[in-house]
């Protein structure tokens, strides 16, 4: 019997496949394509204390095997989430992870408290490249990662996942700081900061000038970082960045990830997370693995 279940720092999931924050809304849209209970977990769109309208359009541009986005955390605010979106998600047998972003450490703490134990986990977004305040500013220095993690941890009664930015010199240093401060898990990578220019209008393709790069193009960087981090910390890691096939997912698990998240791939194929889950199962069948830990981290390095 093949058992794909995962226990991610106490969050029980029936499969290692999660949807990545900001690419899956609050589940309603993709819920009209398939049963959301098929997913290991859903990470919801980044939440802020108050509703946010985000950045100006255009907010997306296409690049080679990738997209740039500059949504800038548009969301209805944590109250609307709790009142209107969470009850919808709770109809399904899947873990719900709340991705939160704030302007100050206090805001993050307040949100963690408001969430209480209504969600299965909290993902601390300290790596959003698309907002001026907060976001990535917290995520690029070990010291501030340590502080914010430590503070929010005190206010959360569910496992705390810290989401790391790839726009750093040494991701293992940041990862270690988060672990040290009490993070229960890590997730990486958020988007790489990128840019595209229209040579005819001579303007940036995004109204925000720069944006976050995601999709297949970032996979090699994401995989390298996940591998480095898994070798540097003991807490579990959710790997993401460009995963669009089951092979991609298996690469991240071989590199040490306990779960994987699918983001941009859903835009291209709404069924991507489901297909990836099926592919992982077939891989396990082929090689006779009965659980994820049978091959997790089993990369044979040269």
């Amino acid at each position, binding site marked *: 019997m093949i058992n794909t279940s995962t226990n991610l720092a106490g969050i029980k999931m029936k499969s290692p496949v999660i949807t990545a924050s900001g690419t899956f809304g609050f589940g309603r*849209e993709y819920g*009209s394509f398939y049963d959301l209970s098929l997913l290991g977990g859903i990470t919801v769109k980044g939440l802020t204390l108050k509703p946010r*309208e985000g950045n100006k359009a255009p907010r997306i541009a296409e690049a080679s095997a*990738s997209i740039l*986005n500059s*949504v800038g955390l548009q969301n209805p605010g944590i109250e609307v989430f709790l009142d209107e979106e969470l009850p919808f998600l709770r109809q399904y047998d899947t873990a719900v992870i709340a991705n939160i972003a704030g302007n100050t450490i206090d805001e993050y703490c307040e949100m963690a408290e408001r969430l209480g134990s209504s969600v299965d986990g909290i993902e601390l977004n300290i790596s959003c490249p698309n907002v001026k305040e907060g976001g990535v500013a917290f995520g690029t220095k070990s010291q501030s990662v340590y502080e914010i993690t430590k503070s929010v941890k005190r206010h959360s009664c569910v496992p705390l996942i810290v989401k790391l930015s790839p726009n750093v010199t040494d991701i293992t240093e940041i990862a270690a700081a988060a672990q040290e401060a009490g993070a229960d898990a890590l997730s990486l990578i958020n988007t790489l900061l990128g840019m595209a220019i229209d040579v005819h209008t001579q303007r940036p393709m995004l109204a925000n000038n720069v944006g976050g790069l995601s999709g*297949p193009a970032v996979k090699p960087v994401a995989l390298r970082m996940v591998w480095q981090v898994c070798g540097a910390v003991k807490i579990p890691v959710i790997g993401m960045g460009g995963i669009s096939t089951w092979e991609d997912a298996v690469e991240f698990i071989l590199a040490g990830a306990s779960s994987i998240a699918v983001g*941009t791939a859903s*835009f291209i194929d709404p069924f991507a997370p489901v297909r990836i889950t099926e592919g992982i199962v077939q891989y396990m069948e082929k090689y006779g693995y009965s659980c994820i830990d049978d091959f997790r981290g089993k990369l044979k390095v040269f």
Partner: protein
Amino acid sequence: MNCQKSIVISNKEICSGVFEMVIEDKCIAEKAAAGQFLHLKPVESNEVLLRRPISIHRLDREKALITLLYQLKGKGTVGLSKIAVNEYIDIIGPIGKGFPIESEKRCAIVGGGIGIAPLMQLTADLKAFGKPISCDAYLGFRSDVYKLEEFSMLCDKTHVATEDGSFGEKGYITDIFAGNLHKYDVIYTCGPKIMMSKIKELCSTKKLKCYVSLEEKMGCGVGACLVCVCKTKAGDGDSWHHSKVCCDGPVFDAEEVLLND
């Protein structure tokens, strides 16, 4: 929502850089309405990663045919144009809020360039509705004109303008339309933003109902990613919020959207 592969029945250039594609798909043809769009994967490779939104141009619900009209712009539309007959195309759709039909009204459609695409099925629906609805067409092009005959068959009167004067009146279609404003109750428009702004402005001076079909770059196309936003009025005064063109639109009541910023 549907996501499936549908068969391409024909795909040909009807005028320089403008293609017409006919797709057979019962499911889509049954559900679709004028003003909605399909989110298409133009090439299989990851090199052109995103889907492309293309409006429903014409529907034959009985024969389960959907016609699209598209203009070559970049990699995506060029990819679309290379799909051979009998090949399959990957489609999410139909998506979005289409054009509302208000009965007993005198209508006009104002289309600019490839913006005429979604207006064709609308005029067909208006004609099918029959009296007391009437519909005139105002079609503006830069130089090359297309689809005039089909519009003239479906509309009471068809006005055409080209910027270079190579066909019909020389100039902007908005100017011709401006002179006939008093004849209508409801206006439907799709085209360059600047044209739609102008139409919106004209309509609001006469308090005519006006529906605009907006374009914005899209990611998911289904409402999940929030990249395709436009500003819509929120309550009184100057306050607004960001609505999603893919699912709150693409058709909006002109009074509800802020087109100029």
